[in-house]
């Protein structure tokens, strides 16, 4: 088994940390993981993205030109990466910031208004965690509980953030499952 997901958005949207939480959760479940950031010139002002590879065998090439899934947090990311996703994968679209729909018919589109949901939960900067929860729930690549436990470990020293973040993740998961049910 190997599955890759690209998280993409603006710098400052918490793209890299969403990917990091997923990678940490992968390790927790005994998987091989690689987290590869973009550090090229496109980081300045354009899209920021990272790819997380999860596998049950040692990972060969950590750079994957055609990942299985995409989490698009802004419009340029969807435009840039929609065509690269493997057939059968998920494209999670942050519909708060992206008015477009996925054009392809061989992937599953999941629309989640990540910013709106984060705002509703009183956490303006938490759209990335909504997206993370949504991605984990629809892909089933790791258990939701593992991600929640990673949040508890990561914020050990700032316990006030644990519940807030986990509420965002759970909300994303809930919406993704609803969206998935509607599609299937």
């Amino acid at each position, binding site marked *: 088994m190997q599955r890759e997901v690209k998280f993409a958005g603006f710098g400052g949207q918490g793209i890299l940390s969403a990917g990091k939480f997923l990678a940490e959760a992968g390790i927790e479940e005994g998987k091989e993981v690689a*987290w590869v*950031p973009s*550090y090229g010139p496109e980081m300045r002002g354009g899209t920021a993205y990272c790819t997380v590879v999860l596998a049950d065998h040692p990972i060969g*090439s950590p*750079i994957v030109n055609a990942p299985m899934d995409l989490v698009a947090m802004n419009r340029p990311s969807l435009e840039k990466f929609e065509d690269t996703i493997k057939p059968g994968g998920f494209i999670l679209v942050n519909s708060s910031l992206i008015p477009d729909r996925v054009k392809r018919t061989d992937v599953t589109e999941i629309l989640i208004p990540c910013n709106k949901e984060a705002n509703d939960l009183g956490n303006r900067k938490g759209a990335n965690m909504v997206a993370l929860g949504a991605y984990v729930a629809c892909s089933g690549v790791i258990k939701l509980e593992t991600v929640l436990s990673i949040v508890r470990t990561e914020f050990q020293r700032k316990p006030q953030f644990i519940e807030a973040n986990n509420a965002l993740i759970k909300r994303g998961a809930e919406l993704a499952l609803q969206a998935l049910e509607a599609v299937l």
Partner: protein
Amino acid sequence: MAKKLMKGNEAIGEAAIRAGALHYFAYPITPQTEVAEYLARRMPEVGGVFLQAESELGASNMLFGAAASGKRAFTSSSSPGISLMSEAISYITCAELPTVLINVCRAGPGLGGILPSQGDYLQSTRGGGHGDYHLLVLAPATVQETVEHIMMAFDLADKYRNPVMIFADGLIGQMMEPVDFDAVPVSKPMDHSSWAATGAKGRDPHIVKTLYLNPIDNEKHNIHLAEKYERMQVEARHEIYGGLGKPELIITAFGTSARVAKTAIDQLNEEGVDVALFRPITIYPFPFKALAELAKKKHVKTLLSVEMNSGQMIEDVRLATQSKKPIHFFGRQGGIVPSPEEVVEAVKKLL
């Protein structure tokens, strides 16, 4: 300790600390600046020193000085920075000082770009600076292996009293992977009191020098160094990966390109194409004998060197095989990592 998710650059810093290297001199350059960032925070916690120099020239000469005192010291940089350090590296090698340098290679020549490359293969394996010398060069392919290599590097540097280089690249430096420090034997600093310049109070002075104006003495020193590089050949390490028993084609690749080749080989082997990987783990000394043995087998028809440069390692592949089998090349440059699909295609064109 459980596996920890770490950036290659941070793991480099942590591994060096665990090897007891508490003297780090550096000047920032992408894509390895996180080594310095990490050590700026960590060194004070363990009673070590991180000194940010005014330039790579400064950093490398501070390294020269610290190594002359027999202490475990190291530096890290990326390609253009390593070029600037080349003068000091030549001096350190002449003075026979154990030390470790990490090159998180980026695309050149010139200022080049900040993305991963293996364009410094010839620079690092042939010396890089002036005079007859070699570094022992280890080329890890994963973050975990980078940690292992740093431990080995300090031991090998002590053993041969010679600088050891870790040849990483921008991908290894920037990527996060799980690291298990407990799985790596910890390297312990060696006693260098017989030669180190530590203050001559109560004993005869120790002299650490690089100037031999008398040609007879200089030749003698050069012969001594050459003998040392000859002895170092036993440190050559390699890995053979994949294949279905009688590979027709051998891919030669190191570091990141070897990882890409592994993915390509998995796919090809699955399709029934018998291809295997020969990965030099030390690029100096190059595992000549092992590659020669493999390449001379009857079933091996051809070799394909996969690199992130214009084909620099082909020189060594040619030396190993005495050009008895055709050697082809596939590579990407400028900071582009080849894709497994491209490697598969390159192999299929040859078979």
